[in-house]
Each structure stands twice: as C-alpha cells, then as structure tokens.
C-alpha cells in the first residue's frame, strides 16, 4: 500500500471560548438561508418564465384573431378593418410582429392600450391594488383558517373534533366558487341584508369575495398541514425535544408544526400566484374590478398590450411569490438550500 503526505496532527486549538462579541452572538444566531447563486438562478429562471409566458400569450392572441376586427365598430367595412390593421401593423406576418413586440419590450416602448391609448402597464397597475387587496385577504384568511383547522385536526384528542372541521372544509372546497359566491350573496346580501352584494368600497364589500377565495385556499392548506404534521410527529427529533422537558405544546408547535410548514408554504405560494390572475370568476360574481376581469376582457377584445402587460405583471407576481416561498422553505428545511 502507498502512503503519502504523513503530516503531524495539528496542535489543537484552545477550546476555551474567548469572550463573545455582539457580532459573534449574531453570527451564530442568524444564518442567511440562501446563497447568491440561489438568488441569481431564481431571478434568471423568473425572467425566462416571464418571457415564455408573454411569448405564448402574444402569439396565441395574435393567432386567435385580428385585433383590428374587434377594434372596428360593428358597422365597419372590410376596408376600414384593413386600414386599422395597417395602422397598427396587424397585417404583417405574425412572427415579424412578435419580433417587433420583443424589441419594443426590451427598449421599453411597450405599446399603449388599443382602446384607451393609455400605457398598458398603467391600465393594469390601476387594478393591482384591488387584486392585491382581494387575493391577499382571501389567501391570508384561507391560510390562517386552513392552518388552524389542520393543526387542530392533527392534534386534537377527540375523534369527532379531528374529523368534522376537515370534512366541512372539504365540502367548501367541492363547491364551485360561483355557486358558493352566489349563495353567499343570496343569504348575506339579499335575504339578511348584512353585507353589500358586490362592488368595491368599504371592508364590508371585501368580506364575501375574500371568504369565497378563502374557501378555496383553506381546505387544501388544512389537509396538507394535517398530514405533514402527522408524518412529522413520529420523527425521532420530536422525542428528543420531549425528552428535553419542553412542554408538549411547545414541542407540538416548535418541533412539529413549524417543521411541517414547508410544503404548506409552497402550496400557499402557488395559490397566491394562481389567484393573482385566476380569480376571474370571483371577481365577476362580486363585480370586483380586479386584474383577472381586466385580463379576460382584454383578451376578448384583443387589446393585446393590456393583456400582455397583465400577463407580465402576473408572471412577475408569481415569480416573486415562488421566490418568497423558496426562501421560507429554505428556512424551514435547511437541506433544500442551494
């Protein structure tokens, strides 16, 4: 056998800790959950996602019909339609239009809305507060209820208490949101006159749409949280924590529930992403002027600058949401850190 580099053992470092500075304390208590590489790759992936989504939507909008046709008035003749098409360049090959669009995107000359001639982004941005208000409230409400029910159902000692709330939530989840929304309106607004039926305004207007969204978020959160808690409960580190003499409640919260949060956070993040652009039906039912409705209308009227600006913003929202989720998951599950 070959043996090389025999080295003497290093003289051991003095083990006694020198007086601790504030920096030491902080350094050992806080640890950045991610590396630069992680952040950079995520951001790049996000840019790719935005580009891809925008390209697909652009090409599909253009492929589904000439915007000029929709822009023209009902009485317009073919010549008028052609004239509008020429003016906006819709008569060029679709690929040329795509390249031009990309160039404009990069140079910041994003086209204005075809109908209102406003910058497309400001049209969409005007809706963002409404959408954020609704989706954040809805998701927050749904998450909180979902987490509470999930935790309760995983830890309660009584069988009925474990089963009933979960099944109730699952009933909610199985009801189409438009039916649920309308039933809420029927009872709370029309019959009992407790809340306004629709529109935006005071907090009262927010209640029913937020509950409708929450009814969709909460059950999934609750189910996932319950099952991850149940899986986490039997991990051996839980026994260690118990053996330390921590209160059972502390063990359940800090060593079981928090550890089980990872997949749940991932789920919630996805839903924020989905709801940003996907709450169309809730918005329609409650006449809530959000991005979703705007987007559907823009697609229908082929107002492609607005539709694309909407898609871009939603993509960015989605990318940001998943970035945040990844960060939170990295905190909860250090092994996932890249």
């Amino acid at each position, binding site marked *: 056998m070959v043996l090389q580099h025999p080295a003497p053992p290093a003289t051991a470092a003095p083990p006694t800790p020198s007086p601790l500075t504030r920096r030491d304390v902080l350094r050992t208590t806080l640890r950045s959950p991610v590396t630069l590489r992680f952040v950079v790759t995520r951001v790049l992936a996000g840019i790719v996602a935005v580009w891809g989504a925008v390209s697909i939507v652009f090409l599909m909008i253009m492929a589904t*019909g000439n915007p000029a*046709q*929709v*822009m*023209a*008035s*009902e*009485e*317009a*003749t*073919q010549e*008028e*339609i052609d*004239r*509008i098409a020429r*003016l906006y360049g819709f008569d060029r090959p679709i690929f040329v239009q795509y390249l031009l669009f990309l160039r404009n995107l990069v140079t910041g000359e994003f086209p*204005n*809305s075809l*109908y*209102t*001639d*406003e*910058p497309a982004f*400001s049209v969409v941005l*005007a*809706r963002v*507060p*409404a959408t954020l208000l609704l989706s954040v409230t809805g998701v927050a409400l749904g998450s909180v209820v979902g987490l509470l029910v999930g935790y309760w159902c995983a830890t309660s000692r009584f069988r009925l208490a474990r089963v009933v709330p979960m099944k109730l939530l699952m009933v909610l989840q199985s009801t189409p949101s438009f039916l649920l929304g*309308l039933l809420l*309106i*029927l009872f709370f*607004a*029309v019959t009992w*006159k407790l*809340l*306004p*039926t*629709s*529109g*935006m*305004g*005071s907090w*009262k*207007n927010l209640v029913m749409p937020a509950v409708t969204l929450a009814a969709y978020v909460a059950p999934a959160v609750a189910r996932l949280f319950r099952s991850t808690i149940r899986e986490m409960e039997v991990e051996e580190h839980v026994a260690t924590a118990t053996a330390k003499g921590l209160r059972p409640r502390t063990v359940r919260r800090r060593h079981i529930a928090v550890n089980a949060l990872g997949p749940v956070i991932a789920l919630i993040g996805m839903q924020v992403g989905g709801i940003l652009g996907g709450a169309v039906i809730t918005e*329609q*039912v*409650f*006449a809530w*002027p959000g991005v979703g*409705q*705007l987007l559907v*209308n823009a697609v*229908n*009227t*082929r107002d492609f600058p607005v539709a694309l600006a909407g898609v871009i913003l939603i993509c960015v929202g989605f990318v940001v949401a998943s970035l945040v989720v990844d960060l939170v998951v990295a905190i909860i599950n250090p092994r996932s850190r890249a």
Partner: protein
Amino acid sequence: GGDSGSTGTSGSSASSSSGSTGTADRDTVNIAIDPLLTLDPGVARGASTDLTIMSQIYSSLTRFNADSELVGDLATDWEQTSPTEWTFTLVEGATFVDGAPLDANTVVWNMERMLDESNALPGATGIDKIESVTAPDATTVVITTSSPFVDLPRRLSWIYFLDPTWAEANNPATAANPSGVYDLVSWSTDGVVELVRNENYYGEPAPIQYANYRVYANAATKLAALQAGELDAVATVAPIDVPQLESSGNITVIPVVSSGHHIIRFNLDHEATADVRVRQAINYAIDKQAITESLYQGLVEPLSTQLMGPGFSGYDEDRESWPYDPERARELLADAGYGNGLALEMAVPEVSNFVSASEASQIIAAQLSEVGITLKTQTIPGNIWAEYQRTKDTAPDMIYQGFGSSSISSTELLNFVQSAGIYTWGQVPAALDQAVIALQDAPDEATQLELIAEVTEILYDKALAVYLWPRPQVNAVANGLNWPGRADTYIRAYEMSWTA
C-alpha cells in the same frame, strides 16, 4: 394622456355608497351597465355601454329622445339646403365644464378628427359620405356630402364632441371635459362611473343630481344587487326572471317595445343554407309563438317578415309573421334532397342584451329536430361571436343575431345585407346587392321607401333570415323611479326621475 382624477378603481365615498337602499336617497340613481371600453367618442361602440355614458357627458348635434323622435341637442334646427348639403344651426353660449366654448368650430374640428383616415377611428363608420364640414359663423355648421345623404341628421345623433384645446393636452379615452347634461366624477371600465349634474348645461337639467353606473359582468349578481336595493335600474332583465322580481314587492318591471330585432341569419356560402328551400323550411319549422309565450313570458310577439321595426322608415304594418308549418318544412327539405336529415351549426352570443338567447336557440334546435334538422348551437362570448360573424372562413351556417340601428335608420340597417358587407351573408342575390347600394345614395325619402320595400321583399322571398322577435327589452327599476325606457339600448340617467 392618462389624466388622473377621472380614472380610479375605487368607488368614491362621496356619493351614496353601495349598501344604502336606493329609496332613501332621492338625489342619486344607481344603474347597472355592461363593462366599458373607452371614453373616446371616436372609439366608442355599443349604445348600452360606452355611448350611454358619452351621450350624457357630451353633446351631439342631434339625438333621439325617449320616444325615439329625432330632436336637436346642440343643433336647434337643420335643413337640407341642397341634395348634398345640410345646414345646422346651433344653440348659443354652449360651453364645456371648464368654460371652453362649444360652438360651430368645435363641431368642425370634431368632424374632421372623425373623418381623418389616419386616425382610423371606428366611430367614423357610417358618416364617410361626408365631404366637408365648415363653420360660416359660430352657430352655423354646413356639411356637404359626396352623394345625397337623407339620413345624415339621424347618423349624427351619436357623433359626440370633444373640446379641441383640452383634447390636445389630455387623453380623451380616459378622461373627459364634459359639456353634456352630466359631468364626470370618476370612471372605470369595470368598476363604477360616477356622474354629477352639469349645472351649466345649455339644455334641460337632469332631474337626478347623481348617477352612478355600476358595471356588472354577472347577471345573477346584478339581480341580487337590484333586490338588495343597491341598484335602482337594470335594463334588459330576462323575462323568465320577471315573476321572481315582481314577487319581491319593491321592484317594478317595465316591458318596452324595442327597435332592435333578433333574427337568425344564414350563411349563403355554405352548401345547404345556399338552398332557398332549406332556408324556407327552417322558417316554417320554428314555432316562434311557443317560444315568446313561454320563455319570454308573452312580453314580446313574433316579428313580421321585415328587418325594421316600427319607427323605421319603410316599416310595413301589414306584413305578417312567417307561419309555423312543420309539414311544409319537411316537404321543402325533402324537395331539396335533405329528406334524410341535415346537420347545421349556429353561433349564439352570450351577451347580456341577448336575453335568454341560449335557451331560445335550444328550443329552436328542438323544433328543427322535429323536421329532421340537427342544429348544433354554440353559445360563445360576445366578442368571439362578433368575430365569427365577420370572419368568412370560420362563420357557421347560421348566426343568431341582433339587428338594429342606433340612428333608427333603415338605410343603415339594410346596408349590412349585402355580399360585400362585413357580415357573412355570403353571396346574396344580385338584385338585393343592387337595391341596398342604391338605397345608400337615395336622393329623397320617396326613393328610399321604394328601395326599402324592394329589399324587404327580396329578403322575404329568398328567406334570407328567420325573423324571430323584437329584442326583449324588459327593464326593472326600484319602486318610485320613473323610467319609461327606450326602444334602443341607451340607459340614460337624465331620462329618469324619482316620484316625489
């Protein structure tokens, strides 16, 4: 562009907020409206949406009043000074809310803006025969046309005027410097449009001070809001919902005879529908009476065999509706070689104006199946449907369509019925094409009437359409709101008032 102040997603809290019951606040009326597109009169389309707002914040030369009579708005008087020249006299002292004058020069500027091809304004359609517009003095506008244009005053009823200097500095699509009966407080395409009475309006002031137009994309929510008292006026509810609304006690339902018609149009480029016997058979096979009595609760009657309604020039009171005769339909089909069955497709719009169109087309399909025609109906969103009816290669055999003219002009209405037109009629009989084109340039009303009668007869003879029923127009209002309703689809707050 992008003037602030006028756009916004949040309802202003100044006026009556949602949730208050309409009866309590007699200064305000809350009205349901479909999603809006723009504030630019040159781009606007659809009397039930954008033009409803514009007709109240802007001035036009003429307008139709609630009884569908053409009256002056900015114009006090007009006359045809030669076959190709019209002279309009304007009111004096009209201004925009910011004080800018609204005179003949304003009108000229606006007409030129509309007609300028490089602006490609869709609103210019229908007035392209105008050659020049001049203003000899501040209250006179002279319009010359390339050929005789009898309908000009009617067509001008939906050309609205901007303030030229204001329009230079602002984006008229998103903001407004009104001159009409109402001033604009805030605007949003699918939120709330808030109007307040324009105290400096040159005409009769609006009875109700505040008008809030609330956008609803969902019919059920709209009805719920009406029942909850958040809305005072909803135009066009489905007749089938009427008993339900009436039973609530605080809502009045007002049926109106509308000027628009629902028809089914054939695509003559398709083999089966190119055969006149097939078209006639379909006409015979549809029992319109059964549908109007059930689905439409007897609130409409089947149409007579003409495209125009009462109020249009050339409307013939003596025409009857097409008889229901399935036996005859079967014979015709067998004759045409479709004795063993025929499969057809029909596009049906999913638009709030087309109340119960989807249900009606299902009944029609069932009726057609009795005579051996399998009708596949496609209920699709309005915009896609609009494209279908223009795109020749994708257009189905039949299209469920509304036929109407916001200028209550038969000339305009019948102009759609031609091979070269944008609607996918396909190759119509040459005689029809000729008559329709001649009609556009008819020098006087007598010639017009003659040509209209000719067109109507060809349409009937060749069975180019199925004449269904007038557009069902049933309005629902909160008790105490006076609103006679209109034959067209404008929903104007200034025509409403609260009973004391």
